[in-house]
């Protein structure tokens, strides 16, 4: 009985787990192909009001205006790249949730790998240095006196 109740509750709560769509029914284009392109483009564009949401998720009025704009451009026959260009011409690369790879974003793209490489080089040098010490590469051999003392100590243990 308890198990049945739980199952029913779980089934009932499932729809609540689906996030509410920001895209309003009146925005959706009749042509499904065009609409799916619009959705894909909207997911790549940052909402400038909420900044960490795409215009596809955001309920901000500006996000809605931009969604409508994207759809209007597509209806006018623009390619996906043309639509992106239209928006970046006005708002800059900042609207792109995936920053482009170019001179000004080089640090962003290369930075983590450079730091990783630097760390790896440091580790390599450190470990190589330590292996040298362990192998006794840079220590002088024992003198005759030291050897005699060591032998004496080792014998005492037997």
């Amino acid at each position, binding site marked *: 009985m308890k198990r049945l109740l739980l199952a029913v509750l779980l089934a009932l709560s499932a729809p609540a787990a689906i996030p509410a769509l920001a895209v309003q029914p009146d925005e959706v284009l009749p042509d499904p192909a065009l609409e799916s392109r619009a959705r894909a483009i909207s997911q790549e564009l940052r909402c400038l009001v909420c900044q960490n949401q795409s215009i596809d998720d955001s309920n901000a009025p500006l996000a809605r205006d931009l969604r409508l704009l994207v759809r209007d451009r597509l209806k006018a026959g623009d390619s996906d790249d043309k639509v992106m260009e239209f928006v970046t011409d*006005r*708002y*800059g690369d*900042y609207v792109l949730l995936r920053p482009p790879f170019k001179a000004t974003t080089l640090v962003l793209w290369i930075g983590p790998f450079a730091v990783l490489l630097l760390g790896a080089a440091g580790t390599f040098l450190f470990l190589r240095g330590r292996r040298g010490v362990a192998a006794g590469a840079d220590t002088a051999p024992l003198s005759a006196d030291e050897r005699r003392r060591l032998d004496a100590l080792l014998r005492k243990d037997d």
Partner: protein
Amino acid sequence: MRRLLYLLPFLLFIGVGVAFYLGFERDPRDIPSALIDKPAPTFDLPAVPGQMAQGQPATGGLSSAKLAGDVTLVNVFASWCIPCKAEHPVITRLSREQGVTVYGINYKDKPEDALTWLSRNGNPYAAIGADQDGRVSIDWGVYGVPESYLIDRKGRIRFKHVGPLTPQVVEEQILPMVKHLRQG
């Protein structure tokens, strides 16, 4: 020399720390405009409907043609925007006392609300274009009102300020820039 090498990670840490600390000083809402030094978008906005009826001089809307000639400030405002009210006295002084022509773009506003707001707070704008659906403002790269743009004599955008204009921004950035652009 070897001791310096040991200090290196610490110095790197200090450097990164300073960089991040300076990052805190930056306003994340302040997004650099993509339109600086580019010509202002071409547009033709109607006046706020009913401006005549309220006894205010109808200035016939705002179009890009009006922007060329002198250095002007284009201010995007709305009656529903609280910071716009805060900057209104600063805009008024800029237009009436400091000799800068200010044009307004009334962003996604109800005409009656805009007119009430203007008659209550005064109208410092030489002309106002009503951008009811916000499309023209998107061409300007507007993402939050109020925003102000300084346009040079050739009609290019030379400076953008997001958020309310303060006397400090006017004194330190706008007026020197206006003087410089008028000479150029």
